[in-house]
């Protein structure tokens, strides 16, 4: 699905990613953990096409295409979705209008017909039920005045509506209460299929109790420094990151 090879990136001459490798196949869920400031959100932003970052080396293949050559909107239209760590507010634009416009541009790009009003409403109904999103939120302005948890849930609602091939969830679990966490996880699980894949960035192994990942990676100082199965998350939860840093230091000697 996505193959990241030796990715180096910087912002304002500050090196953030320093040779990152990651290969995600269709049907897989990968969790990325790592200390604050290690470059997790930066990775997500670069994959989504944010222009602030300069890729200085490496390449990324997404669904057979050179991802870095595509514009942000074309990446989205090809099926890449990013659930933002800090979702943006767009005053005066209703969630449904926003999604309808997005959906139709994606469909047009793919040479599909515009969605009918009836089908769209049915889709909204189905997907908002999936993430138990209050129907009032669907018609309110995008994220405006939403609580932290509501914003996160809205990201998952949008993901469900757009049905991406690859979803990147950047700390979607932070700020969620226990019930919301279960609901969001449930939403992600329902969208899981042999054709889709997900990269889940999180600090807490708790989310991974609900969404069972195929792989867990540790991102540290701009690189994936350790990979393993679900048990790695438990180990991190228990021991923190120091032992990994020590391991790295001794390897370097």
């Amino acid at each position, binding site marked *: 699905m996505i193959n990241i090879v030796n990715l180096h990136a910087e912002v304002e001459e500050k090196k953030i990613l320093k040779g990152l490798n990651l290969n995600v196949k269709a049907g897989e869920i990968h969790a990325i953990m790592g200390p604050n400031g290690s470059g997790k959100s930066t990775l997500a932003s670069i994959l989504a096409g944010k222009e602030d970052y300069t890729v200085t080396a490496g390449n990324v293949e997404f669904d057979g295409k050179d991802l870095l050559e595509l514009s942000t909107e074309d990446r989205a239209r090809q099926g890449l*979705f990013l659930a933002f760590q800090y979702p943006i507010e*767009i005053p005066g634009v209703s969630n449904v209008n926003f999604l309808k416009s997005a959906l139709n541009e994606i469909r047009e790009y793919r040479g599909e017909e515009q969605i009918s009003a009836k089908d769209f409403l049915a889709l909204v109904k189905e997907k908002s039920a999936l993430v138990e999103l209050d129907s009032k939120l669907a018609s309110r302005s995008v994220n405006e005045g939403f609580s932290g948890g509501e914003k996160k849930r809205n990201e998952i609602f949008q993901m469900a509506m757009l049905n991406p091939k690859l979803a990147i969830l950047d700390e979607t679990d932070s700020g969620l209460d226990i019930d919301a966490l279960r609901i969001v996880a449930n939403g992600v699980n329902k969208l899981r299929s042999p054709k889709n894949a997900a990269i889940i960035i999180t600090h807490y192994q708790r989310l991974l109790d609900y969404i069972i990942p195929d792989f867990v990676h540790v991102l540290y100082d701009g690189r994936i420094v350790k990979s393993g199965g679900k048990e790695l998350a438990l180990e991190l939860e228990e021991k923190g990151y120091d032992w990994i840093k020590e391991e790295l230091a001794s390897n370097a000697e």
Partner: protein
Amino acid sequence: MSNYTETDLEKDLQDQEYKYGFVTNIESDKIPVGLNEDIIRLISSKKEEPNWMLDYRLKAFAVWQTMTEPEWGHVHYEKPKFDEIAYYSAPKQSKKYESWEDVDPEMKATMKKLGISMEEQMRLTGVAVDFVMDSVSVATSFKSKLSELGIIFCSFSEAVKEHPELVQKYMGTVIPTSDNFYAALNSAVFTDGSFCYIPKGVRCPMELSTYFRINEGGTGQFERTLVIADEGAYVSYLEGCTAPQRDENQLHAAVVELIALENAEIKYSTVQNWYPGDKNGLGGIYNFVTKRGICERKSKISWTQVETGSAVTWKYPSCILKGDYSIGEFYSVAVTNNYQQADTGTKMIHLGKNTKSTIISKGISAGKSQNSYRGLVQIHKNAKNARNFSQCDSLLMGDTCGAHTFPYIECKNPSAKIEHEATTSKIGEDQLFYCKQRGLSEEKAISLIVNGYCKEVLNQLPMEFAVEAQKLLAISLEGSVG
């Protein structure tokens, strides 16, 4: 807004140049350029006007000659050469049209290009349209239906002939000829416009709509509109403009007077889309308009405007809240791009007790344009418990444009409550990135964000107008980011 489709917008977005830039080939009847008493007499006689109308014009002309152009606006432009303008131009017609079928096919084609096919409008929307091409009304519909209710909706010239008592009673009562330079000029040389009278207690059952259009190169356009809502009456009036592309500047100095008698309500909506000039600031319309309404007891006047066109706009639709408990509202979106300049806002003059006014102004500036809000809230000594709420927001796109706010408050009664809020924001890179990440193109993203920003104002417009306005916003901001 449900019938507004993405495809429509997409199409409009591909249409880079000003889409109404064409000139219709209708022979027109023009008088020599320049302005003097003889020209005014000529206009008056061509229009077969009664003497009182000619006197009115001549008096206004005398006043105008003593006046100078206002300089206080935050706009810079080359002053029009008033003696190089032809003050009258009427499409040549051998006879007046009896029915829609009789209308010149070329004129019909023009209207089609404008997207306001009369057949469609008449059949589908029930909007009565008084179409003004250049300065003479050429088609009026729904007249009979309206007249059953005693509603008069006709061209201004016709009103002068058919309803002189109403015109004489009200014309110039809200905007005296001496009000300002452009109003005085208009009073002297106006060629036509619209007249509307809603009798006591009548609720006008349809939106009354006039499309204005400048058609002759080098022709000044001086419209005059008078709307009177008698006691307890209601009317919603729509005014929309498009003009063909021209290289020389064209002057447009309209006067609109609204009169809301006791318990009456007038909603006046404008979508202004005059030719704004090209990307380098060449050409475009000078739009110097005086619009004002007067409210008697418990009456209400709402001005809603979406201003996207014109090279220079100078316009302050205002309300004189004379009667106790009267209400004035002003909702405005003003967009400037490239080298456009707009100085627009409102005046709310509180004379009566318990009067209330609301001002919502949304300015959007892009390119190298200058966009100013100028508003006056005036509370007179006897206006006990007057209330005003003003909100003036500016949205900037890029960093070569300017947004300015000039709020003036004069309060002579201590019981007044006046609130003023103002914000300035930029279209955020973060917002754009978020939209694009969901698959939206930059144009579509901007259009969504801008329409969201203007929502409070757009919501005030009747449905069909709101759709048109949304598209216009997108078209006028095209290519303004990145």
